[in-house]
């Protein structure tokens, strides 16, 4: 039979003898340990590499491939406008869009409907609601200019149907391995930073974000995460912006000066985002200064603002949320109190509606001063350009560019002071005499914000996109030297490979291992800066260490690793301290009355008769095995089962249903690793049948 030389395993012995494992076990070990080199993260930059526009990065994390953003470049009209999708090697697992700006979503209909991507697409609720408006608006302007686009209005709606809307912080499981989660980014309504994780490798793609709250949106918010990589925008890689207050004052003064002098103010903005913020600011000022000059909105904006503020309020900042909550209710109660072109419902966030009017083309040359918000921003076409052509020749007028203008647009030329003449069409041109002010009202974070975010996340690697090359390299140096984080700024088409370092290997442990680990065995010590382990210096941080882990032993067979508490197993040696067989154990209760009843039926009594009953039961349940009754214990292969009378049995499991200590009998089992499957099957069937 078996001998039990030392139940308490000499752990030091295990450590002292170093034997080279034989060949088959080396291969066993290799299949368990992570492959070297580890897979990690690979980034392919399809757009916004060392430039601003057509954001698109394809990231492969441990074999799963995600496309972050799918934008178009507004400064190009040739093939350069779209990311070069032919560079993608293999299929994508999903596409995630961070926000509704065209340079982040513009190429999506093309990608899904023309290129034929058919997998999942994720974006936040506001992005899904507002993106089609942006895309349709863009298409309208293109058609107006006679430019042939690569997708149609039908493509837009077909594409949007495939989109799955997501909420902030919602955990999305894509397939079995990929997990994504969106965080608030502040930049525009619904803008998100995206966290993605596959296995042990994780990363964040920020999209565009803003680290300071503005009048209608909050600041970006993210949890502290352990990250291998952060891909961040770097629009303002070197600028530290003025305080919000100063630029707001500058804006208000410029507008005020102009309207008092009888001029017209043109504010080219995109439909959503800046327009709302500046309007809230202006409206407030108008009320304070008791100004009566009308503020116009180009008509396309009103419908958008409608959905925007009514349904997606929870995505704005707290202050708006609170006031809207009341006013929405208020408006519902009293209906329309405004007799102008649209009802209060359309602009429920506007307290003083009398000064807001929608605008149509006939009013461009109406006399008197006014303020007009017109889309698109950057004067890239449409109504804003049309109005600009009419108003630009007059000195009293003002063009207000609230934010960054992409290179190649008229807005960009105007802001850089290079624009004096503009061709209206092929043969006539106008002179630009109006004033222009370019204010950094952009909702992008400045360099301080970027650094703050990186400091907070402290990832192992950083990649910069969405910025201008010279500034990016300055920021890159700052990150590498200042924070000691490896930083990359690849150009379009560039590939960055990052090894993933936080790799874990998996093992299973037994219940009592976990239990022993849950009752800690702490020891405290102070570590000193001088390097000595023990120090009396009270200012040095306290180090908590504990020894419970060294009570555990890890076993491995057939590439499966198992952690076991030392008291759980017995080693059966050949006599020279070298163990040969490992026995696992489990001790569990069953209701003795059931057992007694069963023995009673057979006309038997006593502990031994219980084993007889069990033997009968087992040979019935497992007919293909040989159940032997050895008198004190039952044996099936290496599996042994006996009645356990030891109250402090180390293998004992505590929580079993409907069984109370007084009415139960414990059965103690042990088995060799190779018989584990059988053992578990026997245990669960004994439990279930009795």
């Amino acid at each position, binding site marked *: 039979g078996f001998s039990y030389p030392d139940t308490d395993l000499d752990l030091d012995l295990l450590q002292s003898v170093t034997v080279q*494992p034989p060949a088959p076990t080396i291969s066993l070990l290799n299949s368990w340990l992570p492959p070297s080199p580890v897979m990690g993260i690979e980034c392919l930059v399809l757009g916004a590499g060392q430039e601003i526009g057509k954001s698109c990065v394809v990231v492969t994390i441990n074999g799963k491939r995600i496309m972050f953003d799918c934008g178009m470049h507004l400064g190009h009209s040739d093939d350069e406008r779209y990311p070069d999708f032919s560079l993608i090697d293999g299929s994508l697992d999903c596409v995630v869009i961070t926000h509704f700006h065209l340079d982040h979503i513009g190429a999506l209909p093309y990608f899904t409907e023309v290129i034929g991507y058919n997998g999942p697409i994720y974006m936040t609720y506001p992005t899904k609601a507002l993106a089609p408006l942006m895309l349709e608006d863009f298409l309208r302007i293109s058609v107006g200019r006679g430019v042939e686009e690569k997708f149609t209005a039908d493509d837009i709606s077909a594409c*949007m149907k495939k989109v799955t809307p997501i*909420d902030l912080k919602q955990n999305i499981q894509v397939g079995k391995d990929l997990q994504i989660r969106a965080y608030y980014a502040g930049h525009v309504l619904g803008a998100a930073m995206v966290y993605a994780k596959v296995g042990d490798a994780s990363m964040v793609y920020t999209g565009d974000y803003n680290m300071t709250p503005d009048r209608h949106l909050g600041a970006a918010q993210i949890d502290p995460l352990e990250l291998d990589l952060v891909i961040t925008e770097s629009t303002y890689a070197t600028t530290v912006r003025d305080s919000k207050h100063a630029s707001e004052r500058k804006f208000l003064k410029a507008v005020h000066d102009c309207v008092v002098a009888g001029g017209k103010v043109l504010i080219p903005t995109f439909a959503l985002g800046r327009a709302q913020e500046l309007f809230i600011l202006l409206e407030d000022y108008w009320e304070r200064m008791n100004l009566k000059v009308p503020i116009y909105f180009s008509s396309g904006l009103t419908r958008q603002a409608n959905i925007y503020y009514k349904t997606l309020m929870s995505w704005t900042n707290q202050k708006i949320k609170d006031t809207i909550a009341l006013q929405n209710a208020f408006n519902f109660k009293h209906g329309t109190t405004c007799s102008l072109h649209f009802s209060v419902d359309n602009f429920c966030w506007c307290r003083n509606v009398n000064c807001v009017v929608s605008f149509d083309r006939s009013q461009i040359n109406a006399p008197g001063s006014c303020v007009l918000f017109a889309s698109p921003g950057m004067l890239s076409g449409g109504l804003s350009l049309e109005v600009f052509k009419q108003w630009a020749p007059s000195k009293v007028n003002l063009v207000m560019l609230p934010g960054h203008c992409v290179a190649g647009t008229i807005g960009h030329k105007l802001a850089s002071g290079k624009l004096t003449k503009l061709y209206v069409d092929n043969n006539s041109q106008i002179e630009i005499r109006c004033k222009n002010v370019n204010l950094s009202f952009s909702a992008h974070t400045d360099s301080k914000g970027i650094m703050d975010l990186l400091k907070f996340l402290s990832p192992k690697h950083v990649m910069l996109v969405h910025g201008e090359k010279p500034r990016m390299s300055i920021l890159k140096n700052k990150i590498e030297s200042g924070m000691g984080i490896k930083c990359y700024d690849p150009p379009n088409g560039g590939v960055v490979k990052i090894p993933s370092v936080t790799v874990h290997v998996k*093992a299973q442990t037994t219940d*009592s291992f976990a239990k022993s680990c849950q009752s800690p065995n702490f020891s405290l010590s102070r570590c000193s800066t001088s390097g000595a382990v023990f120090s009396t210096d009270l200012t040095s941080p306290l180090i908590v260490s504990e020894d419970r882990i*060294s009570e555990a032993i890890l076993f491995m067979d057939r590439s499966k690793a198992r952690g076991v508490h030392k008291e759980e197993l017995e080693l059966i040696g050949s006599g020279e301290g070298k163990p040969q067989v490992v026995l696992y154990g489990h001790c569990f209760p069953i209701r003795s009355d059931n057992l007694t009843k069963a023995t009673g039926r057979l006309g038997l009594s006593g502990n031994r008769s219980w084993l007889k009953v069990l033997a009968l039961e087992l040979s019935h349940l497992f007919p293909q095995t040989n159940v032997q009754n050895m008198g004190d214990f039952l044996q099936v292969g290496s599996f042994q089962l006996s009645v356990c009378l030891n109250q402090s049995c180390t293998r004992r499991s505590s929580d079993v249903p*409907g069984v109370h200590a007084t009415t139960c009998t414990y059965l103690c089992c042990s088995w060799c690793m190779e018989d584990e499957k059988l053992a578990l099957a026997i245990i669960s069937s004994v439990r279930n049948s009795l």
Partner: protein
Amino acid sequence: MKLTCLSSGTGYQYPPCHILEDVCGFRILLDCPLDLSALSVFSPVPPDNGFVSDGESSHISARDCYDKEQEIRKRQKFGTPLHGEDLIHDELWYKTVKNLHLWDPSSIDVVLISSVMGMLGLPFLTRAEGFSAKIYVTDAAARLARLMMEDLVSMNMEFQYFYGPRESGAPHWMRREELELLRPEVKEVVVGKDGSELGVWMPLYSLADVMDCMQKVQTLKYAEAACYNGTLVLKPFSSGSEIGSCNWTIDGPKRNITWLSCSIFASKHAMNFDYDALRGRDLVLYSDKQFLPLMDEVQSNDASSTIPSKDLSDLRCCSADKDDWKKLSESLLSTDEILEKEKLDFICSCILQSVQAGGSVVIPYNRLGILLQLLEMIPVLLESLAADVPIYVISSIAAELLAFTTVVPEWVCKPRQEKMFSGEPMFSHVDLMSKRKLHVFSAIHSPELLTTWQEPCIIFASHWSLRLGAVVHLLRRWGGDANSLLILEDGVDADIALLPFKPLEMKVLQCSFLPERRLPKIECLLKLLQPKILVLPDDLKEKLDFSNPSSDKFPVLYYTEGKTLCLPSSPEGSVDLEIASVLAERLVWQTLEKHDVMYTRLEGELVMEQGKFRLLPGIARADSHLSKTKEMKTDAG
């Protein structure tokens, strides 16, 4: 791990309440409801006195006078049918969960809330001394629950005005001799079947208690993960029964648990039941009891709600090819839809009849979803009638409640989300209000109501117990009108509830607003979730059959109210451990002779992160931790 069912509840209005003990060493309370149906033992504020003017003396005399009258009546009428005067004439007290007060509030570590109704009793708990548990609830449910609690507080004010300042100590009806005088029907509600429930009655919490409670609550978004103490990862997934209502998953290192609360497969307004996310857990606790009364109904001969037997057989057979998820979910959703539509159509036709006959309709709403759906269906009917019948919603929170439904696209069902994406309002009440077909008032005595008042009309008002709020006044107004109609939900004991308004000429329609979840469906669902262990209320023992040999077998345990049930750990008893590869590579291995087995002693530091055991190289970990805290400090500076 142990499960104690504190109260098995009565369904949607009073969901069950459980305590899970030793979930990785923590104690979790599941829901904290209030039994509002017990309010029916009280009499509503008497009609003539309504809102009494100031002056203490009149209040006290009112109370005294009622006390005496009541006593005389009781003695006289013992043995005669129950009368309105047999109810308790005093300020309302509220019945909390019956066994909860036996537990030390400070011993609870986590509270999980599944629905608005499951939160109404929470302020009692949060104000208890020593209570420090973390409370998790979805953001939408928290918002709605705050409104409901505020509404309750404001409705309860009427009683306070009438009866004056609260007496110190127990109210008179709690005295032993008074209890003896109570009629048996009333007494059973007051002291419970076994006479143990007198101690659970409480005067209502104050507005300050509600605010305090809301501050202690941590709200989560849909499927957002909260990590308690690094050990338990908690996630809410939509249960379909209401905006913000959810089922929870509790993932610990040793075991994954799904707690299924009252769930509806296909909702007309709220986000659908997300059962896909609940699959593959070790343990499923199914605490939904709502279908139970309905089951009996189906078995009897209710013609309107019997399902074609074909559907049932469909459901039965679907369990066979369970890989076919799509087919299954479609069949789960479809039958619900038809039934709910039928039911609401029937309600609407009754409403129409009343209105045509010149009567008014009172609907004490309690389920937001039903309010929203009826608000959509009724105007369509009225259109066909060509009569100008206004719809009123009267409640202190009605305006905010309806406004709130327009701003939670994340929690409404897919078709309504699509409406939002195409720029339309998600619910039609926005339109109705702007067309002035729907009017919302905060109280029955608001001046706007008086100026727009028009009869016949259709009124949604609170409260469904018929003891509080505008409903009481409306019933008094139309109680004698045989053309008027009152629509009550199942689950309210109509006999007692209507007592104070007798004699009642008004028609009363009592029906279930809820789509039925029939047993085959539940059986099907539970089989699909494939738990290792299933825990069910004992009422289901006879009704559900899991011994079907064709399905994979899993042990089923049954819990009983007031009893503690031990939940077994899975027989494998295995817990996942992640070992940092740096550490794994430097382990020194030994081999066992004759076997292809190796072993080694473990080292490093064991940490618990996101519900997982991780073994990290100790020293390096300490360093990175230090540097991280340092950075955070400089950040703050």
